[in-house]
């Protein structure tokens, strides 16, 4: 096992088509707050994932953050699901894809239930073959999981609702476990540093865009298109 950093997905290596950014820009904002709060409150009781059954004090910024998380979970869930369907992985790697895929799909379900009608729709993905061989799968999975961990870390302190925050933190540490798991299988130190750094949403979106994995924009769920990201 070595301490070298994995080959990450670099912005400059790809054309940036802006698909993810555009999808994320369509996140519902304040004008939908009333409806969102009702949906969130209704969903909360049904979602096992969210540990605290507090009042759904959702504000528009929380909704934006939860949709941002949902977009990342869509991306990951789709990646593992496709890898499993194609069946090119063997042994420990196939097991990792199976278990982590289940987790990411559970995260998607939880966010969708929580967000109700405010949830962004799933975009279409094209993973350009990285789900079809072990080496490409490993590198991409390492990048995705480290990216998700950093993204949650940036967003968590910005969440106002205590119950949403508790849920996001419970997922944040699982993403870190996923990162450690796949890093070990890829021959990297699972915990290479004493402190994990956060990553801004703009940088996360840039990195995701750079992969060209998102091929179709999510259908619009809001009339507002003015981009505004927190963080």
């Amino acid at each position, binding site marked *: *096992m070595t301490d070298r950093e994995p080959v990450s997905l670099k912005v400059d290596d790809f054309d940036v088509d802006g698909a993810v950014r555009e999808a994320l820009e369509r996140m519902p904002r304040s004008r939908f707050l009333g409806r969102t709060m009702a949906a969130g409150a209704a969903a909360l009781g049904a979602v096992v*994932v969210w*540990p*605290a059954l*507090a009042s759904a004090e959702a504000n528009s910024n929380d909704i934006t953050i939860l949709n941002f998380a949902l977009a990342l979970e869509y991306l990951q869930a789709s990646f593992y699901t496709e890898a499993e369907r194609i069946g090119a992985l063997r042994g420990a790697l196939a097991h990792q894809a199976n*278990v*982590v895929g*289940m*987790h990411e799909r*559970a*995260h998607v379900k*939880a966010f969708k239930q929580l967000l109700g009608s405010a949830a962004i729709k799933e975009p279409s993905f094209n993973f350009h073959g990285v789900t079809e061989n072990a080496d490409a799968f490993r590198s991409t999975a390492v990048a995705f999981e480290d990216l998700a*961990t950093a993204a949650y*870390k940036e967003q*968590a*302190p*910005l969440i106002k609702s*205590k119950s949403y*925050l*508790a*849920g996001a*933190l*419970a*997922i*944040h*540490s*699982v*993403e*870190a*476990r*996923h*990162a*450690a*798991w796949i890093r*070990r299988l890829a021959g990297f*130190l*699972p*915990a290479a*540093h*004493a*402190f*994990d*750094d*956060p990553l801004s949403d703009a940088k996360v979106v840039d990195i995701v865009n750079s992969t060209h994995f998102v091929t179709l924009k999510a259908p619009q769920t809001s009339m507002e298109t003015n981009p505004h990201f927190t*963080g």
Partner: protein
Amino acid sequence: MVKGALPRIESADQRGGPVVRVSRATLLKGSVAGVGALAGAAIGGAELAASADSSGSAATDREILTFGLLIERLQAAFYGAALAGGHLTGEARQFAQVVGAEEQAHVKYLTAALGSSAGPSPHFRFGDSATDPAKFIATAISLEETGLGVYNGQAVSLTPKTLAAAARVVSVEARHAAWARAIAGQDPAPVAVDVPIPVAQAKQTLEPFIVQ
């Protein structure tokens, strides 16, 4: 937002340290169950704050970080004892070296943030948990998951600034837990969400390792 800088908690609150400072006398008193006395002082207020859905305060931050420091000190001492024992080989030994150094960095980080209210470290004893390779890895899993579970549970009571700083540590604890599980032949991430660990449960896990 200043990333990575854990605010100096002590100076942020003029009410001072005695609220949660655990004296050596309290620590050594014994009968009140070492960690109970220790963590009870440190965490009682934090749990109260959490249930009251407080938006956090410097005093609450300090209480939570004080308990976090106890866990980090215990972990750092545990890996130090395991390496000193000389019974670890292969990946378990590498794990103890890498993770031990990272726990020491966490101790330094929290000690700096807490200033004089950090107080002295208790003494620890690990017996064969640190020296028997099978017990070592099982104990490592338990300690790392206790750490991340407590952080996850208490984080909602932190001020956003301190939460941002603590989150940089939490995910590293999660990586440690996952790595230890992998070494033990278990799934590194057994469930889709990490359920927070109540402080009372964490105290039970830590108590046997603290010298009265």
